[in-house]
């Protein structure tokens, strides 16, 4: 044993001494390869950073996107009246006594009609409702070519107006009420101030001032509308004696009829915002009706019809893609290309043929405007490519093992497998022939983040998309079947499988597509979208490969 220990010690010293100061130089190109890899990693980090920022931005945009831009209905909801009034606090202060509730909505369309002339760059519509006396009022307006209407469920007063580029009109609906209710609706011009006070009686319009109202002059108490700061108020009333638009830079008041039981005081202050411009308040009622786009409907059925029409008009635009949020589910036949272009390995497996695979996914669509939306998705994809070569010649090399360069990295085959003992290469033959079949399959998960622009408003709508695709490799598998033929009598099969190759797990790159969508119902549409995406990083750090995918999504979208 002592001899053995001694010998072991001597042998250890032999190897330790031999390798202690030995500094073999790697190939000069080794640093270049490493630098290229470091650069790729830097780009990858930048890509991740950009993707993260983009994702954060999208989520933030989605979360904080103002409702006013997305809610095209402009339906004043009674339940949100108080909050709405608060929102206008800096511009408009509305006070409604006798438990009236105020509702305020903004719109940016100028309003013009015969009796009421409001020409603001920004107009505000204020609706006040006296709930104590049961009537309720709803104000609806929409943008261009739409219908605006005001509905009082109890007092059956509806103002309907149709005009291009028109929002709706100043309607103090309380005037029309028989008793116990007061509702005021006003439009204001930017940079103007309007205030209405029922207790400040400057001009008594009660019994005379009927603004779009055909009922109820009796029992009305006084309410005052005070217009300051260069106001112009045009009432739809046909019988008012009040000239609300008296003098510029003066205070003018309009007395509106109020209920017997309650005193309604409405103070509207639109600091630097509101104005009312009146034209002729003494117009003849018939003349006004002739010229006016406003009609008053008294019957319940008419009210309901008008409401229904107005609602339909505003919701028609919300078909399919008009929903703020929608979800798409899709499948896509897809083909991926990933070819080795250059490598330092002994043998390149090139010209592999890709096969079509089916990918599937879902995406969330966030509508930003009529034509623009953001799509964020998640999909599972796979690609497969294979290659079969009947005769390839490998050089008998001193460098072992034999390395096959694939698009997933290098596959090393031990020398003992390729050249079994007993095989002797006689000169001049320094090569040996093999037949091989190579197959690689990669599955991955994608996260596409795309912007989408839709053309037209018909049922069939073309669109284009472009954005960024993030890709993460879930699994990779490559197999190589080698048939070695050394002589006619000796054929040896070898089968090698590699489950963990040098694959770039995270990848990213641009994606683009163009498609057609067909609107089926309000909430449902189908689409077909050929698209392509390119990966910026090589699929494998050791293989210079160009990696792109082409597919055709067929999907269905459901509005939320």
């Amino acid at each position, binding site marked *: 044993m002592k*001899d*053995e220990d001694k*010998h*072991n010690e*001597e*042998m*250890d010293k*032999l*190897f*330790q001494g*031999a*390798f202690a100061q*030995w*500094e*073999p*130089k*790697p*190939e000069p190109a*080794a*640093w270049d*390869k*490493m*630098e290229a*890899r*470091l650069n790729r*990693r830097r780009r990858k980090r930048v890509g991740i950073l950009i993707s993260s920022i983009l994702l954060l931005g999208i989520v933030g945009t989605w979360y904080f996107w103002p409702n006013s831009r997305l809610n095209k209905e402009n339906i004043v909801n009674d339940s949100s009246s108080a909050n709405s009034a608060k929102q206008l606090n800096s511009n408009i202060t509305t006070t409604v006594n006798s438990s009236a509730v105020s509702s305020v909505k903004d719109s940016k369309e100028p309003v013009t009609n015969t009796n009421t002339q409001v020409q603001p760059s920004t107009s505000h519509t204020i609706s006040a409702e006296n709930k104590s006396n049961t009537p309720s009022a709803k104000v609806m307006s929409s943008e261009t070519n739409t219908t605006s209407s005001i509905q009082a469920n109890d007092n059956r007063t509806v103002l309907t107006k149709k005009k291009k580029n028109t929002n709706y009109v100043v309607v103090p609906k309380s005037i029309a009420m028989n008793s116990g209710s007061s509702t005021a609706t006003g439009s204001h011009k930017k940079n103007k101030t309007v205030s209405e006070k029922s207790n400040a009686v400057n001009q008594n319009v009660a019994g005379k001032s009927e603004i779009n109202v055909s009922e109820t002059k009796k029992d009305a108490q006084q309410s005052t509308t005070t217009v300051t700061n260069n106001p112009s108020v045009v009432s739809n009333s046909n019988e008012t004696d009040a000239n609300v638009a008296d003098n510029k830079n003066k205070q003018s008041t309009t007395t509106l009829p109020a209920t017997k039981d309650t005193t309604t005081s409405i103070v509207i202050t639109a600091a630097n915002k509101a104005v009312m411009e009146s034209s002729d308040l003494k117009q003849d009622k018939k003349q006004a009706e002739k010229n006016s786009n406003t009609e008053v409907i008294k019957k319940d059925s008419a009210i309901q019809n008008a409401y229904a029409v107005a609602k339909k008009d505003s919701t028609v635009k919300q078909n399919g893609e008009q929903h703020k949020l929608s979800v798409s589910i899709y499948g896509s036949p897809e083909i991926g290309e990933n070819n080795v272009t250059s490598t*330092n*390995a002994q043998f390149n497996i090139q010209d592999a043929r890709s096969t079509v695979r089916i990918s599937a996914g879902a995406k969330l669509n966030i509508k930003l405007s009529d034509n623009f939306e953001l799509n964020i998705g998640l999909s599972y994809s796979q690609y497969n490519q294979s290659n079969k070569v009947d005769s390839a010649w490998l050089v008998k090399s001193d*460098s*072992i*093992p034999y*390395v096959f360069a694939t698009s997933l990295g*290098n596959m*090393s085959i*031990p020398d003992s497998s390729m050249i079994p003992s007993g095989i002797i290469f006689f000169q001049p033959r320094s090569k040996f022939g093999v037949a091989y079949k190579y197959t690689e399959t990669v599955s991955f998960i994608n996260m596409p983040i795309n912007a989408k622009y839709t053309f037209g408003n018909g049922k069939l709508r073309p669109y284009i998309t472009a954005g960024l695709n993030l890709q993460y490799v879930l699994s990779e598998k490559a197999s190589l079947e080698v048939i070695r033929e050394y002589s006619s009598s000796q054929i040896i099969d070898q089968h090698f499988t590699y489950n*963990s190759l*040098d694959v770039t797990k995270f990848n990213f790159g641009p994606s683009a597509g163009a498609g057609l969508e067909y609107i089926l119902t309000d909430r449902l549409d189908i689409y077909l979208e050929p698209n392509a995406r390119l990966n910026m990083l090589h699929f494998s750090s*050791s293989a210079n490969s160009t990696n792109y995918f082409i597919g055709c999504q067929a999907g269905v979208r459901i509005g939320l």
Partner: protein
Amino acid sequence: MSVTEAEIIEGCRAGKRELQKALYERYSGKMYNICLRYAKSKHEAEDILQEGFIKVFDKIGQFAGTGSFEGWIRRIVVNSALEVIRKRKIDFSSIDINYVQDPHEHTFNTISTLNTKELLAVIQELPDGYKTVFNLYVIEGYQHSEIAEMLSISEGTSKSQLARARNLLQSKLNETELNLKKIK
């Protein structure tokens, strides 16, 4: 103009490419030595070297500066080599049938006069398990307990692998020297 080790470390921490290259040039020879001993081929050794230096650049911020910088790099490169070997799924319990020999058959000849490249070729021919334990114990100087932890094996396995590696090396050295004598 020579750059000091401190400057290289600082530059690498800042991600400066020229100083990363300086670090690579300074230590690549020594580290390539390690890689060649663990790898099966030059190609694999270069892959390990690349992987090792990428990790060095990534983790250089973690280098405390208290110990030897070269030793720190060496440990990273050795670990990179072990990762590659682990991917090959070495079965330490198996013994390659081609290499099973009775150690008592060996006659302990005088120690080989082979040069470093020839010794490297002998090491590279060893099965992965033998080669790994031999390198870790004999060249790198790790203890069996450390090797056992690094390779997730028992100390006994480490010792037996080393004994077999030595026997096999001796056998190969004798064989190689015999062949060389015949040629001469």
